[in-house]
C-alpha cells in the first residue's frame, strides 16, 4: 500500500476499501461499525443531546495531541456540557492528496484511544480525498449523541447572581501550544495542550452535585469569550479576581511576551462551571479528586449589576472591564 493518501483512495473502489480496512476498521472496530450504509443503534431511555463540530487545526500534530484526539474531545466535551453521557459518535474525514498514511493512522489511533477513555463508540465514518491544495492536510468533522443524566439541566441562561464561577484547571494552554507549534514567533517554551475528554470528571461531579447551573467548554475564544456569552444570555454581570485565575507559568511567560490575554486563548480540556454558592465547596472537592480537573478553582462570582459585562478586580484592588472579545484572535486553533 502507498505511504501517502492519493485521489484513488477517495474514488470508492478497491483502494478506498484498503484505506478503510487499514486505518479505520482497524482502529474503530466495535459491534456497531458495519459495512452497511448506516449503523443501527439502540435508543437511550432518557433525553438525548446531539452535537457536531468541524476541526481544521494547523498544525495537525502539536505537543500533547493531534487533530484526531481533538476531534473526539471536542464532541465528547460538548455533550458533557449538557450533562449527557457520550454514547455514539461519527466522523467524516476530508484528506488532502499526499497526506502521510502513517500520520493518518496515528490520528485514527488517537481517536480510538480517546473514545475508549470517554466511553463513547465510533459507529460510522466517511472519507473523502481532496486534490492537492484544495484542503490543508486533514480536516475532521465529528458528530455525537449522548444521554442526559436524570435530574441534570444546564444552560447559559441558568447563571444566577451569587453563583460561583469555576474553571476546571489552568487556562489558555491549547491556544498557546498551537501558537508555539506554528513557530511564527521564534519563541521556545514547553507548553502542552490541555486537550482531554472531560466526561469522567464531570460525570463524577454531576453524580454528587447535580444542581450545577452552567457547564461550558472554553474552546475557541477561551474563558473570557464564554463568560461574555453567558453574561449576555443570562442578563447578569460577572466579577472576576485576576489573582485567582490559574495560568501556568510557561503560558504566563509566552502570553506576557506577545501581549496576549490568557483569558482569550483556547482551552480544549478546561471548562467553565457556574455553581450555586451553597454547592461550591462540594463541587470543588469532587473536581479536585479527578484527573484533568485537579486544578479547579473559583475565579469569580455572578452579580445582578453590570448586566452583560465581565468586570475584573485587578491586583491593586481596582476594577475595570475585561475587554470584550473582538477581531481575529488566532485562526485555525481547533
Amino acid at each position, binding site marked *: 500500500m502507498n505511504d501517502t493518501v492519493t485521489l484513488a483512495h477517495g474514488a470508492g473502489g478497491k483502494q478506498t476499501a484498503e484505506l478503510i480496512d487499514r486505518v479505520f476498521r482497524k482502529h474503530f472496530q466495535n459491534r456497531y461499525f458495519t459495512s452497511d450504509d448506516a449503523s443501527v443503534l439502540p435508543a437511550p431511555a432518557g433525553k438525548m443531546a446531539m452535537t457536531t463540530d468541524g476541526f481544521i487545526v494547523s498544525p495537525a500534530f502539536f505537543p500533547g495531541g493531534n487533530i484526531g484526539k481533538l476531534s473526539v474531545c471536542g464532541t465528547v466535551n460538548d455533550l458533557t456540557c449538557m450533562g449527557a453521557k457520550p454514547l455514539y459518535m461519527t466522523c467524516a474525514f476530508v484528506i488532502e492528496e499526499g497526506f502521510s498514511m502513517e500520520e493518518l493512522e496515528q490520528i485514527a489511533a488517537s481517536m480510538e484511544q480517546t473514545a475508549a477513555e470517554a466511553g463513547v463508540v465510533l459507529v460510522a465514518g466517511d472519507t473523502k480525498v481532496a486534490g492537492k491544495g484544495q484542503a490543508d492536510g486533514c480536516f475532521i468533522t465529528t458528530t455525537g449523541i449522548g444521554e442526559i443524566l436524570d435530574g441534570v439541566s444546564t444552560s447559559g441562561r441558568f447563571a444566577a447572581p451569587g453563583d460561583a464561577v469555576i474553571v476546571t484547571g489552568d487556562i489558555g494552554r491549547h491556544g498557546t501550544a498551537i501558537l508555539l507549534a506554528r513557530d*511564527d514567533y521564534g519563541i521556545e517554551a514547553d507548553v502542552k495542550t490541555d486537550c482531554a475528554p472531560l466526561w469522567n470528571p464531570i460525570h463524577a461531579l454531576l453524580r454528587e452535585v447535580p444542581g450545577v447551573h452552567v457547564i461550558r467548554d472554553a474552546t475557541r475564544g477561551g474563558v473570557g469569550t464564554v463568560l461574555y456569552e453567558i453574561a449576555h444570555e443570562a442578563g447578569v454581570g460577572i466579577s472576576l479576581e485576576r489573582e485567582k485565575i490559574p495560568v501556568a507559568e510557561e503560558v504566563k511567560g509566552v502570553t506576557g511576551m506577545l501581549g496576549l490575554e490568557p483569558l482569550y486563548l483556547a482551552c480544549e480540556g478546561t471548562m467553565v462551571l457556574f455553581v450555586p454558592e451553597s454547592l461550591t465547596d462540594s463541587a470543588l472537592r469532587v473536581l479536585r479528586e479527578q484527573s484533568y480537573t485537579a486544578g479547579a478553582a473559583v475565579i469569580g462570582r455572578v452579580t445582578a449589576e453590570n448586566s452583560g459585562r465581565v468586570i475584573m478586580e*485587578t491586583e*491593586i484592588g481596582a476594577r475595570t472591564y475585561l475587554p470584550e472579545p473582538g*477581531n481575529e484572535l488566532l485562526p485555525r486553533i481547533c
Partner: protein
Amino acid sequence: MKQMERAISILREYSGPEVRIMEVCGTHTHEIFRQGIRGILSPAIHMISGPGCPVCVTGTGYIDEAVWLAEKKGCTILTFGDLVRVPGSEESLQTARAKGAKVRTVYSPQDGEAYAAEHPDEECVFLSVGFETTTPSSCIAVKNAVRDGIGNFSLLTANKTMPMAYEAMKDSTDLFLYPGHVHAITGLSVPRMLADTHQVSGVCAGFTARELVTALAVAVTNFEKGGYFFVNCYPRVVREEGQPEAVRLVDSMMEPCDDLWRGIGRIEGSGMKLRQEYASYDARIRYEIPFMQGRTNSGCRCGQVLQGRIEPGQCPLFGKVCTPEHPSGACMVSSEGACSAYYLYGDHQTLL
C-alpha cells in the same frame, strides 16, 4: 507589598493642587487601564494619555506609502500586526491584503530580514515604526542584510525620538511619566535637562502595577512640595547613561530628520532615517515613492486626544462609528491607543 499599599493610599488620599500627569508611552497607557489605576486616583490627579504609541502617531500618508508599495510595486510588506488595520487615506493594509496585496505580520525586524532571505524572488519592505526601543532592532536587521548580502530587503522608516516631542507637549501637562524601557536605552540626560532648565518635571517608571503606582505616588508627593524635579523610579533597569552601544549603533546607521506626527504635525528633528550609505535599504529612495500627504477622517479627533486636549469620549466618533472593529483613527486600532483603552477597559467613573 507594604510599599505598594502605601503608594495606593497616597494616590487615593492626595489632596494637593490639581495635577496633570501625561503618560507618554503606549505600554504605560495600556497597563494603567488594564490595572484599573485611574480608578484609585484622587479626583485631583488627572492622567493624560500622550503620544507614545508608535502606531497612533504614524501619519495616514505613511500607510498610503505602504499600500502604494504593495499595490503599485508588488512589494511584500512585513509589519507589526497593529499597523495592518490602521486606516490610510483610501485603504488600510488589511483591505489591500484582501485584494491580493502581500502583507505579512512579523514579530521583529530581524524576522523580516530572515523572511527576505528565504524569499529572494520577493521585494520585501519592513515597516519600521517605533521609538528608541525598537529603532536599534531595525538597524540590526539592515546590518544583517548587509552582512548576508540580502538585496531584496528595505525599511520604510517612520522611527521617532522622544526629546523633541516632550518639548512640543510640555504645555499639555504638569509632569511626564517617562517610559522606563526608552530611557533604559537613551539614559536620563534628557529628562534631567527638562527638569533643570525647561521647568518640566517627571518620573521614570517600569511597567508592573507595583512600579506604576509607586512612581505615581513619588510624582504627586514631589509635585505637592513644589519646584521642578526628576526622579528615576526604575533604577533596577534604567541607568544614567542608558545603553551607549545601542545609541551608537543607531547613530552610525541613521540620522535625524523632521517627522510628521499624526494629529500633532511636523516636529523638527523628531524622526530618524537611514544614512546615505544605506540608501539602497531605504524604501523611499529605492522605489522612488512620491510624496504622500495623507488625509484623515474629518471627524476624527485623535490629534487632540494625543495631545491630551480632550478625553476620547469627547470625540463625536468614539464608540459610535469608531470602535476597535471599525476604527476611524489610529488611537482606536492599537491596543496601546488611548481610545482603544477607554473603549475596552471602560471609564472607571461609569463602572458600578
